[in-house]
């Protein structure tokens, strides 16, 4: 069934978009991430302009992270104090990111910057996660104990605060910085950033796994709602019809993904996610390295007639 998208200005097959939403939703539910890094490239692939894709995916991620956050809230797996400190940084970072986005677009190299940051970020995070998952898997095979968690220099910073639900005593400085970085990256790349935030919170901030996913979902939810608003007000690029189809597919897929995720062991899950992120990064890298089929591209600067 064909449906005409009012903002993207092109007809799409409803079932195709629904299936894409469900597939990405499944992955996001399984790993507890937003899935923006998969959704945005997929939409661009079916012919939606990058700008509309980035703007519409933001509201899709907001929907799936809200349903996730509600579930974690009921299980008391969200640390409200930690979430609010993260948000202070997140909102600042998003605003900074949107500003940078505009500057880059004026320079005419936005597409290249997006592709490069996808390559650098996804290959780095993906290979780190993959190798970490592999090591953890080997450790459990050998039956060895996981290495003891040690405090690092981050825990020596001033302005300490007690986060009761996470049972950690931590300086607010690294938390705000992490929020800024995630907000900034998210605004430029059109991703929620959950797949970077969760490892940072676990390995750098030493947030216990019981509250990490729920809290990161709160940050994703608020930054993505903020991004939706910014895109709607400044660029008028949010396609609500497209977003709605993606949301319906996404939240449904996420439920099944979450159930599937519970059946897989943590290390294997990290290994799989690392592999997935790495392959998206490599795909972007290949696109930059091999000679494109067509050296020329056209971009419309808006109909004025």
């Amino acid at each position, binding site marked *: 069934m064909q449906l005409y998208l009012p903002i993207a200005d092109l007809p799409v097959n409803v079932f195709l978009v629904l299936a894409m939403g469900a597939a990405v939703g499944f992955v996001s539910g399984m790993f507890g991430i937003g899935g923006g890094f998969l959704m945005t490239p997929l939409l661009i692939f079916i012919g939606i302009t990058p700008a509309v894709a980035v703007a519409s995916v933001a509201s899709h991620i907001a929907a799936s992270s809200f349903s996730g956050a509600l579930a974690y809230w009921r299980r008391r797996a969200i640390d409200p104090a930690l979430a609010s400190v993260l948000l202070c940084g997140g909102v600042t970072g998003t605003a900074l990111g949107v500003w940078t986005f505009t500057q880059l677009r004026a320079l005419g190299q936005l597409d290249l910057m997006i592709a490069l940051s996808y390559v650098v970020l996804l290959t780095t995070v993906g290979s780190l996660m993959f190798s970490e998952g592999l090591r953890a898997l080997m450790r459990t095979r050998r039956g060895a104990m996981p290495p003891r968690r040690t405090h690092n220099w981050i825990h020596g910073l001033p302005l300490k605060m007690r986060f009761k639900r996470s049972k950690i005593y931590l300086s607010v400085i690294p938390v705000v910085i992490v929020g800024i970085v995630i907000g900034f990256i998210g605004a430029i790349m059109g991703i929620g950033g959950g797949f970077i935030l969760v490892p940072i919170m676990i390995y750098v901030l030493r947030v216990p796994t019981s509250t990490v996913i729920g809290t990161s979902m709160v940050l994703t939810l608020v930054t993505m709602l903020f991004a939706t608003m910014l895109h709607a007000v400044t660029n008028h690029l949010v396609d609500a019809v497209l977003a709605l189809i993606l949301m319906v597919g996404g939240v449904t897929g996420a439920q099944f993904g979450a159930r599937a995720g519970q059946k897989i062991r943590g290390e294997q899950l990290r290994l799989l996610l690392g592999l997935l992120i790495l392959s998206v990064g490599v795909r972007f890298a290949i696109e930059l*390295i091999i000679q494109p089929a067509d050296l020329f591209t056209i971009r419309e600067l808006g109909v004025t007639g």
Partner: protein
Amino acid sequence: MRRALLAALLVLLLGGAARAERLIVSVSNHRVTVTPNYSGEELVLFGSVEKDATTPADRTAYDLVVTVMGPRADMVTRRKERTFGIWINTDYRQFLQVPSYLALFANRPFDRITSPEIARRQQIGLNNVLLTQRVSGDFADVVPNDAFRTAFIRLRTQRGLYREDPSAVTFLTPTLFRTGIPLPAEVPIGTYEVEIKLFANGAFIGKTETAFEIVKVGFEQFVATTARQNGLIYGLVTAAMALMTGWMASIVFRKD
């Protein structure tokens, strides 16, 4: 005074003589509506060549060139080059106010209808249509085999937005003709100008114009206008919709 009057009369006479034939045309639909299930359409243009008393008796065979031009827009064509091992956009050309949709139809190959000179002047064929570029601060069209111009036309043609078909116009009788105007699914919204140029024995003898528009209606129109005019409300509604969907899902799929 008398001389001016004479001149005016002369112009009128000559004009009348030049317009010995009259073209009467119409399109099957002057208002194409884009609805939720829109997936492309084909319009039909039909018309006839009306002769009058001043038409030379030996003029029987006519040739027609139909030009359809969509709303104009500025576009940028970029070329990728390998720099530091990766392919990045290096050079670009700006095309100013070029048609977003362009179709040229004729009843036989353009080069057999008229001379290259007239074809260039009357913009017959994709190679002769004026596509203004900004070349280092100057505004001009370039030679037809320019790399950026060729790539631009090729890419637009691939998307079905630029086309030329020298056999699309059919003469049903020596003076009655018709042609189809295919509109692809991703056709730009706006006003389309249709120019019909008449040739006889290689000479350009007249033209007429008509137009049609492509509009979004109903829900599509409503969403598009709201997004443009009330960005804040639109954003709030979209955000609320996201929250609603997420909340509904968490209720529907609640496990306990």
